[in-house]
């Protein structure tokens, strides 16, 4: 079970989806092409909260294990997010728990 570029692209796509819980903010992912990377900037409520890089010149089966480190998730959870076993709601809650973004009181569960 290796986290590949294909998984990283799926992760980026999934982060943009609307969360099911209405009290959670929606994430915005801005792609910036710089050097060897396609940098995925994650924004929330107008703030730049996190980022990870995808190597744009690499093959789709190339390992992108660093994405899990950048998002401070275990490799297993990162893989689960990419293949849809972990929801975007859970990811936003993880971001809040790790202190990447500040949720107003009304957003806290």
């Amino acid at each position, binding site marked *: 079970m*290796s986290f590949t570029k294909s998984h990283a692209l799926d992760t980026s796509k999934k982060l943009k989806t609307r969360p099911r819980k209405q009290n959670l903010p929606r994430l915005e992912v801005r792609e*910036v092409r*710089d*050097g*060897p*990377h396609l*940098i995925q*900037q994650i924004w*929330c409520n*107008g*703030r*730049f*909260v*996190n*980022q990870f*890089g995808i*190597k744009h010149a690499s093959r789709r089966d*190339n*390992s*992108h*294990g*660093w994405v899990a*480190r*950048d998002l*401070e998730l275990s490799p297993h959870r990162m893989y689960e997010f990419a293949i849809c076993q972990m929801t975007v709601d859970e990811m936003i809650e993880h971001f809040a728990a*790790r*202190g*990447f*973004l*500040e949720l107003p009181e009304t957003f806290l569960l």
Partner: protein
Amino acid sequence: MATPTKRSKKTAKKPPAKSPALADLQRAHRQILGKLETILEECSAPSRVPFCIFVSTLAHPEVGVIKPIPVTIEPEADGSFVASFVDAGISSGGDSVREATWSLGQMLASSFQTLRELNDGQLGPKMRRVKAVLLEFLCPSPNPTPSTRPKN
């Protein structure tokens, strides 16, 4: 020219029968040799243990290094490497240590340039921390030089 004569079956000498003690000794020697070969193979294989290096240049035309950056290199199961600047929470990777380090350098330079243009009000808590760390280690390059990608 003399031709070698074949020995008759009667005159051919049989190898001496091994004593049980000698056979045990040979078996033990073979086992030890096998173990030594395994140890030698493990020693000559590329390192599977994470290690740390210090990077004093990013090979980036617009970003310089104020003080050496501690970079952790971790081998992946598929033979590739992940390079991380743990303090800033930024990582990248490559097929070799050199490529992973270069790739991380490009990522750090790019992040530095992006974050320098944004004010703290536009940054979340993590990115504010990242900006503070990058400002401690990096600066705009006084002598721009062209970036070169490492060759494997």
